């Protein structure tokens, strides 16, 4: 079993996340996946944007980069293209990835650039104290949706699959063991890997939406998760408001940095 301590900056703990926040659980799943996948410690770079999820980067003992809101993916793209030998892990939240960062998300999928994005989806903007995000469910209550959210949310797994990601999966903080396996598979995929991790924000989303405590939120994740194989046999109405978990998509496509190596080979001949 992984000794996660060697991947942690112990002096930065305890972390800033609230008691019962799912982000620490998801971060643990990421770290265990790094260990299982055997990623060389000095070749991993963790890039994050802004928000509670993004703070995860500071707690991990790798080269870490905490960037601007929504922009982790293009920063990571620059790192990866400049040094394709590095393993890029992006920690991002639902607002960071799907609102302000949405454009970068879909283009990285389209390029199939080799990196693994883990979205810590707690359906809220936590760091700024509880505004609704693109992932807040319809009718959910938040500080900027006091009468209830009237917007639909994305199915981020469908979005990224359609945009070209070659590995897409969804897990939950409750299902942390399975989540870690999905992330590990994401690392092993040579291409753009996207893992949505349903997490809980007990302080903002939880309180405003009648979840008494973090345990209740994990129970909700447990009771509303439907594995993809089972979901395939259910009617859409039965799946409303459910969390479909598992590997959503896997495919093989040429990877961006490998294609660019071919460009370099061609150009070097022409230029000389």
């Amino acid at each position, binding site marked *: 079993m992984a000794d996660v301590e060697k991947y942690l900056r112990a002096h930065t703990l305890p972390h800033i996340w609230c008691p*019962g926040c799912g982000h620490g659980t998801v971060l*643990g799943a990421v770290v265990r996946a790094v260990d299982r996948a055997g990623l060389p410690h000095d070749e991993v770079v963790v890039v994050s944007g802004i928000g509670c999820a993004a703070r995860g980067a500071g707690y991990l003992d790798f080269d870490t980069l905490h960037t601007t809101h929504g922009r982790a993916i293009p920063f990571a793209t620059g790192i990866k293209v400049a040094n394709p030998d590095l393993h890029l892990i992006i920690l991002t939240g639902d607002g960071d990835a799907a609102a302000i960062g949405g454009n970068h998300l879909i283009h990285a999928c389209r390029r199939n650039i080799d990196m693994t994005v883990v979205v810590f989806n707690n359906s809220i903007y936590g760091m700024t104290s509880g505004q609704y995000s693109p992932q807040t469910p319809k009718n959910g209550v938040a500080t900027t949706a006091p009468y209830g959210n009237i917007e639909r949310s994305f199915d981020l797994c469908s979005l990224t699959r359609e945009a070209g990601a070659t590995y897409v999966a969804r897990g939950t903080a409750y299902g942390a*063991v399975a989540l870690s396996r999905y992330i590990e598979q994401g690392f092993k995929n040579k291409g753009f890997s996207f893992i949505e991790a349903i997490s809980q924000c007990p302080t903002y989303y939880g309180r405003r939406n009648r979840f008494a405590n973090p345990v209740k939120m994990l129970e909700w994740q447990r009771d509303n998760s439907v594995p993809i194989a089972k979901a395939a046999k259910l009617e859409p109405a039965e799946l409303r408001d459910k969390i479909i978990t598992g590997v959503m998509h896997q495919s093989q496509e040429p990877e961006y940095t490998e294609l660019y190596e071919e460009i370099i080979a061609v150009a070097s001949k022409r230029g000389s």
Partner: protein
Amino acid sequence: MVHGIVTSDLGVEQRQETRGEKVVSKKPIKVMKERCKGCDICISFCPHSVLNKGPDGKVVVSDPDACRRCKLCEHLCPDFGLKVLDADAVDDPDEEAGSDD
């Protein structure tokens, strides 16, 4: 090999075996109290009711003998506060007996 029953500060009995100089503990879970935020997640989801809330609001391993080392608590803990120890894990000689309970 000598078996002994050690009573920690909180009165929880803990089996210990000693092999010569080393003390081999059967303590199944290490709790890093400085990290624990008392969220109750591990306590609620442990299938064998091994864990409980101590007087300081942090987790204690109240029924170590019930532990099956399934590691669910370690996976679920949001605080990196729990480590499930292998059955033959050797106690850190610098740790006081029972300090994690």
